[in-house]
């Protein structure tokens, strides 16, 4: 992979040259009410307006390490909330993560999400714009939908601020929608969920047969406590086709028709990396920065209710995710409470679907259980058997 670095260096300078030579508009610009210095956080004399959240995401490229050790070139997002805008280009180039940083907001919050396009260092031939598509956002308008045919996308070296009045609670997801098949296969995918107002009820509020106590958390505004949970874990189904990524890295024609994913993952890693509390070794190719910080190890004390926020952003296949040891109580689909819950041991998701699942561990013996795909050939990391789309549920 030495060739990458050789290639990346001129790419870096070409990118700087392009940005320096483009018309004088381009700039990293954060819009965040109450924030005066553009770092998207409130410090010193800056006053945070009530109910306001600011997020600063970057979009660009990077490298990750697959569970079998293979280096993979990605397009991705990273979170630079808190970084002064004049440092963002330097820090964010060739520094994106997989999956994209998890976004968690509360129902009713005013969310100002700034997306800054830092360019693709490894691909100086590309001039791609990027977007954020909040997948499943109800009652959306095109300007903030991030679907490029119907709205606007942000060019390299510049920023676009999306505004969301955080909608109904539940499990959504987000991704770049610009040249969607390519940018999504390349990794611009992440978890996103909204927590309900019901979490903030006064202590002692009666919800049917349930009495709310401060600290109780719910999936939905259920009115009866039936979606209460103790610990929650986003679990995103993802998969890569290494031939597609290598073609992109090497500036070759992209194999759309032949796309076939052979790196099935949860939250951007294949087993056993899914349960590792330390990230895979940071690739030299992205300057040694950690690019896969998210594990999928699910831990709970016996008796706790575990919420799994399962979503799929697979670009090719449907996957069935199974929890054979602990029954899955399905309370929501696509960020809506189901009219009738059901219990199962497996769920099948295509790209763009989500489920909210509660694992009740009251009657479960302590020990280690598994959450894995029953499309069993996907228990692999490309050619390496035993791995892939699997993680562990540890009941203490």
């Amino acid at each position, binding site marked *: 992979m030495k060739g990458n670095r050789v290639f990346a260096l001129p790419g870096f300078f070409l990118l700087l040259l392009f940005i320096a030579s483009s*018309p004088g*508009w*381009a700039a990293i610009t954060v*819009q965040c009410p109450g924030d005066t210095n553009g770092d998207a956080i409130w410090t010193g004399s800056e006053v945070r307006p009530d109910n306001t959240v600011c997020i600063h995401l970057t979009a660009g490229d990077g490298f990750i390490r697959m569970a079998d050790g293979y280096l993979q070139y990605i397009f991705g997002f990273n979170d630079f909330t808190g970084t002064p805008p004049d440092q963002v280009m330097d820090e964010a180039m060739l520094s994106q993560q997989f999956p994209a940083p998890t976004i968690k907001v509360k129902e009713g919050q*005013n969310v*100002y999400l700034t997306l800054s396009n830092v360019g693709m260092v490894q691909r100086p031939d*590309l*001039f*791609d*714009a990027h977007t954020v598509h909040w*997948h*499943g956002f*109800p*009652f*959306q*308008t*095109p*300007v903030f*939908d991030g*679907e490029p*045919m*119907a709205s*606007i*996308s*942000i*060019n390299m*070296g*510049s*920023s*676009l*601020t*999306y*505004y969301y*009045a955080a909608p109904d609670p539940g499990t959504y997801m987000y991704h770049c*929608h610009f*040249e*969607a*098949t*390519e940018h999504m*296969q390349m990794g611009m995918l992440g978890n996103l969920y909204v927590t309900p107002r019901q979490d903030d009820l006064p202590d002692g509020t009666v919800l049917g047969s349930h009495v709310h106590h401060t600290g109780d958390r719910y999936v939905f505004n259920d009115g009866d406590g039936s979606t209460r949970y103790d610990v929650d874990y986003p679990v995103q189904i993802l998969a890569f086709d290494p031939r597609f990524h290598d073609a992109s890295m090497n500036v070759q024609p*992209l*194999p*759309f*028709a*032949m*796309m076939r994913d052979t790196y099935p993952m949860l939250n951007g890693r294949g087993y056993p990396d899914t349960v590792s509390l330390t990230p895979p070794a940071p690739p030299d190719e992205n300057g040694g920065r950690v690019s896969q910080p998210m594990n999928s190890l699910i831990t709970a004390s016996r008796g706790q209710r575990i919420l799994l926020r399962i979503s799929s952003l*697979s*670009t*090719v*296949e*449907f996957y069935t995710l199974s929890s054979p040891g602990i029954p899955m109580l399905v309370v929501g*689909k*696509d*960020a*809506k409470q189901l*009219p009738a819950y059901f219990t199962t041991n497996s769920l099948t998701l*295509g*790209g*763009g*679907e989500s489920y909210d699942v509660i694992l009740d561990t009251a009657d479960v013996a302590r020990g280690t259980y598994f959450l894995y795909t029953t499309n069993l050939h996907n228990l692999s990391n490309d050619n390496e058997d035993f791995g892939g789309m699997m993680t562990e549920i540890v009941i203490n």
Partner: protein
Amino acid sequence: MRSIMTQRFRWFPVMAILLLLGASPALAAIQGVTGTTFNLTAKADHISTPDGNSILIWGYALNNGRMQYPGPTLILNQGDTISITLTNNLPPGAGNVSILAPGQSGGTATGGVQGLITREAPPGGSVTYTFVAAQPGTYAYYSGTRPELQVEMGLVGAIIVRPAGFNETSNKIAYGHPESRYDDEFLFLLSEMDPNIHEFVEAGLMNMIDNTKYWPVYWFINGRAAPDTMLDANVPFLPTQPYNCLPTTHPGERLLMRIVNASRDLHPYHTHGNHHKVIALDGRLLESAPGAGPDLAYAAFTTSVPPGGTADGIFYWIAKAGWDIYGTDNGHDCVDADGDDLDDATHEYCPDHGKPFPVNLPHKNDTTFGAFWGGSPFLGTAEPLPPGEGGFNPNGAYFFMWHSHSEKELTNFDIFPGGMLTMMFVEPLSAPLVNP
């Protein structure tokens, strides 16, 4: 991969909108044929794909007209006894052909020859099927003869059964319950294709077909791959693909999606803009008891209909944006006399009325514009764009992509974008809906 691909895609919608503007205004509805007696003919012909390919198809033709893909949408009335006579004019070597109509009642078949699943029309011969359209809903029909080949070759179509009491102007309902009412309806017949099979058939190499190597590279809605899905219906240069799929609606209206999966794979069909409420599967209302209405309906932002199955969804759009989608400088009102939080005429969400647009949009030099971007975030407002940008949204409508979320399927034989996608658009109330 921006340079080639977006440019290639950009000029196609020009045709779509030009054709759209040239069409005579009509209510949004599904194209098809009505009646109780139908004569269909199975024939061979070719379809076009947006990458310039021409693919051999076996399909159903109405009477002895031109074969079409998919076959004519049969729009029936609940309770009617339906008779379909099928004549086999497929080329020699194609063998017999037939029709199955799953979900219908009391089916009989007469004439022709006995096949494995049903009676079949032999080459040059005919067979007649009768059934009762006993239950309202969305259905498919397709060949029951060598279906692994003949359905792939194109012998598939949709059936819509109108419920008792349905009226095209005064009582638009999908099922026999008011909760299935709708204002606009559209068909989404999803299919995919492996052109190798069609090439083998065309070359007379039927024995070369190997279903273990099935590898689709085309994906269709109503027989067209994007961007052709957005062209007008019945465009003369797609003579064997008469149906389009360009759903339109107004704020607050109920748009009925009739989804038919006429393919081998599942396709997670995603609606930008809002959830859709799935009220029926396989032609049966999701109700806990007969007459209860769709009390088991569920909202989804992505629906995956199993192969051979159907789903009916109600899509409903208003904005709850947190800002006034009509802008704050034009003096419009939000009048909510009936207390549903919506303006009684425009369905504007009144709690957001008068709230300013929350951010500054980036400078145009830093922006890539979509072809369906009207230049303004406000509904019904079109603003100038730089030369060559936008241009396909003259009314300032809100466009939303409705597409398979298996993103691989947004391609036409290795070329992005295309495949199983279309644009749904919400027109301001002042604009009529002109589709198909």
